[in-house]
């Protein structure tokens, strides 16, 4: 905006309103202030505008008698989450698959690790927590080896 404080034209209603509401940019605000101090007409319009702002706000507030305290918010009972195929089946399957792959290719392979075919049981349990995004869901994977050793792995 090309505002030169010393030669500023009389202030239009829009700028005056912004000025009264403290919504002018700093440079503009200084220019308006300077002008008002030196122009009787604009000074009187500024007074009017300011009085209007104060009085309308005050008048509207007579509509409010008392303010009640916010009542306790009735938090709805947690809904039973709908069966989410992606979360309950695909993701655990993917996790289990990668885990098996890890066991298979893992560093323990050349020692006492079991070949893939001998890992007899892999169970995974999921309980979808509706309050958490997908990437924060927990899965428990239980691996039972043929010698009966049970390992439980929690994946987050």
């Amino acid at each position, binding site marked *: 905006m090309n505002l030169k404080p010393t030669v500023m034209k009389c202030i239009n*209603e*829009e*700028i*005056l*309103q*912004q000025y009264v*509401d403290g*919504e002018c940019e700093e440079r503009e605000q200084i220019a308006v202030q300077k002008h008002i101090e030196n122009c009787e007409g604009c000074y009187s319009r500024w007074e009017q*505008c300011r*009085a*209007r*702002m104060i*009085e*309308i*706000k005050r*008048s*509207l*507030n*007579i*509509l*409010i*008698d008392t*303010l*009640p305290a*916010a*009542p306790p*918010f*009735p*938090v*709805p009972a947690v809904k039973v989450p709908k069966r989410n195929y992606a979360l309950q089946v695909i993701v655990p399957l993917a996790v289990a698959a990668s885990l098996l792959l890890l066991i298979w290719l893992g560093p323990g392979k050349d020692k006492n690790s079991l070949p893939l075919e001998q890992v007899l049981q892999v169970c995974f349990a999921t309980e979808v927590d*509706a*309050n958490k*995004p997908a990437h924060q869901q927990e899965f428990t994977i239980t691996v039972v080896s043929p010698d009966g050793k049970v390992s439980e792995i929690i994946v987050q």
Partner: protein
Amino acid sequence: MDTFEKTYQDNYNVMYRIAIKMLGNGSDVTDILQDVFMSFFEKQQQRKRVEYPRSWLCRATLNKCVDKLRKEKKFTDAEPAPDTEDKSICQEKQEMKALMSYCLTRLSPREKELVILYSEGLSYKELAQVTGIAFTSIGKTLSRSLKKLENELKTHGYEVYK
């Protein structure tokens, strides 16, 4: 992001005031506010991002109020201006309220919303977000709306400056 409870506590009163100003004194706005905050709660549950919660809540509150006014047909059928002559002092405040509510109905729906939100101290940025009026037009629209309301009040004998 604030918790739901904090947003609720921080904004309940403002939404209450906006709803009363929209509907007139004596209206029951409890249901409206519960609906509004429930929608907000569900939005958060669904992890839908609300960038400006206060603006969102203002918009939702105004919408619910407009719905209610429509249902009550107050929105279209203009009421006669309340008679303000010869009133006892104890009646005076009620009369002023009725008159104020009436004068607000003389504004366009958009002007009415703007003036009410303005009276709640919303910034121009927030006013633009809630009303959909361009930010650069807020000053102009506001100036016009405030003058219009002032004229309505004066015309109907409301003593604006006393």
